[in-house]
């Protein structure tokens, strides 16, 4: 067990787990409470288009993912805010188009492409020091913004109309949130892969909101839970030689089912 930590890649992986869990717990809570799960899934999958294009043009795939993920965030955010109908259709279509762009550009790229799979399914063991720095920057940004706007974010998540009447910058806050979702997607991409981001983003917050009745506390518990899922899943995958991203997600999914059952039989739980 201890000798695991002597491996640099293992230390990086665990560190990535910590850094991702911070942002994931905080933003995941807002995503779940504001019912933006679908849009987050859309952003995550669309980001693959950026990865594919970056490969083709020979630039850093993370950069491609950042650009695509932010573009997708703004576009989907705009669709969700402005279009009165068929938002889910539009978001679903963008989701698939983003992936298709990624696949086509991967086809067009000559040479070895196995690395592309790591962006889809995650490769927490391949996290570099540069990745860790990027994650730290995103964490600081997310934590700073959420602390600065906590009460306004809470208010507009709970009751947007009232917040608007109080002249709170509801649209600006939405833009901030959707930008943060785009950034968090990129950092989670390394850990569980674009395809499974949606689960790690939402499961901890979903469990938290089963048992807790305050947004701050849910954020805290979600952070702890996603740390448990990433590092627990990582260890399980190491010992049984499984894909780390999928193991993390199955661990989280199993915990969610257990939480639902526990909640069902828990009479003293606040939301029972």
């Amino acid at each position, binding site marked *: 067990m201890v000798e695991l930590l002597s491996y640099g890649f293992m230390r990086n992986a665990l560190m990535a787990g910590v850094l991702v869990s911070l942002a994931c717990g905080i933003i995941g809570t807002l995503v779940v409470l504001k019912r933006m799960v679908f849009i987050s899934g859309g952003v995550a999958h669309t980001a693959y288009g950026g990865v594919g294009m970056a490969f083709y043009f020979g630039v850093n795939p993370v950069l491609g993912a950042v650009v695509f993920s932010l573009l997708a965030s703004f576009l989907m955010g705009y669709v969700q805010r402005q279009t009165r109908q068929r938002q889910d259709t539009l978001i679903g279509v963008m989701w698939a188009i983003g992936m298709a762009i990624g696949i086509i550009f991967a086809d067009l790229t000559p040479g070895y492409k196995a690395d592309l799979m790591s962006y889809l399914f995650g490769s927490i063991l391949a996290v570099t020091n540069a990745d860790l720095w990027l994650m730290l920057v995103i964490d600081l940004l997310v934590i700073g913004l959420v602390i600065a706007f906590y*009460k306004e974010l809470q208010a507009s998540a*709970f009751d947007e109309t009232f917040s*608007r*009447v109080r*002249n709170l910058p509801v649209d600006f806050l939405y833009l901030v949130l959707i930008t943060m979702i785009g950034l968090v997607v990129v950092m989670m991409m390394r850990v569980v892969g674009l395809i499974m981001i949606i689960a790690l983003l939402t499961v901890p917050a979903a469990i938290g909101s089963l048992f807790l*009745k305050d947004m701050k506390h849910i954020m805290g518990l979600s952070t702890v839970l996603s740390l448990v899922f990433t590092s627990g899943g990582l260890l399980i995958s190491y010992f049984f030689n499984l894909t780390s991203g999928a193991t993390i997600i199955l661990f989280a999914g199993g915990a969610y089912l257990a939480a639902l059952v526990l909640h069902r039989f828990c009479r003293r739980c606040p939301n029972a």
Partner: protein
Amino acid sequence: MHSANNHITAGKQTGDIKFMPQTFQKSSNSTLIEIENLHAGYNGEAVLQDINFTIQEGDFIGLIGPNGGGKTTLLKIILGLLTPKKGRISVMGKLPQDGRQHIGYVPQFADFDSDFPISVRDVVRMGRLSGKRLFKRLNTEDDAIVEERLDWVDMRDHMDRSLKELSGGQRQRVYIARALATDPKILMLDEPTNSVDYESRTKIYDLLHTINEQGITILMVSHDLNVISSYVKTIGCLNRQMHYHSEKEITAEMFNAAYDCPVELIAHGLPHRVLAEHKEAR
């Protein structure tokens, strides 16, 4: 800075409803909201036609009308959430976006996510937020106001409970406390007694009556015609057009114009008048 009623702390209790301290701005007759020749609609369909309507300080207006008659649309326009197609509107002499800070808004029940994890205290604290106070923490004065408003609606003992543990009537009183925490000149409620049991309903109306007596003007949309006519001061009927005469009685013609179905009318607590049943239209 805040309205006069903040300076007085004690309130005497009468029955279930705690009475608020008297304010100084009682029933001076100035116009708070003015609407002239206003038209509004969505996607080319007219919802409001040629609305002329003023709200005087101290009034308690009950706004009735059939579903789809434009009641919620009118509230949205007053709150600056929807732009009218034509016409003029002023709220406290300003554009709705600037004047709405003086409106304490109690949205429709159905607009809320009943699962949202938030404490009663945090809901009412929302009333202390405003666009001008970004980056500023709420202070002890805000906390005192929050507790006081919760006391007014008799929900202070539930302050630290989760909103989702409360009954419909209790929640509605929390939303009223939140609206009062904004120190409003006008309280605007959209069907405040929907999905609330009969007993809570009476309690809410008594509460609104008391609030109005303290000098806060009220505009309330309601379906609860029999009950509202015993609490409100004036009644408006809205069915695309507004029928409003600054009176507490609904005239037969107002009613005919506003509704297509026979409704029993009771005005001001007494069985006042029952309209003759008229033919169902179409």
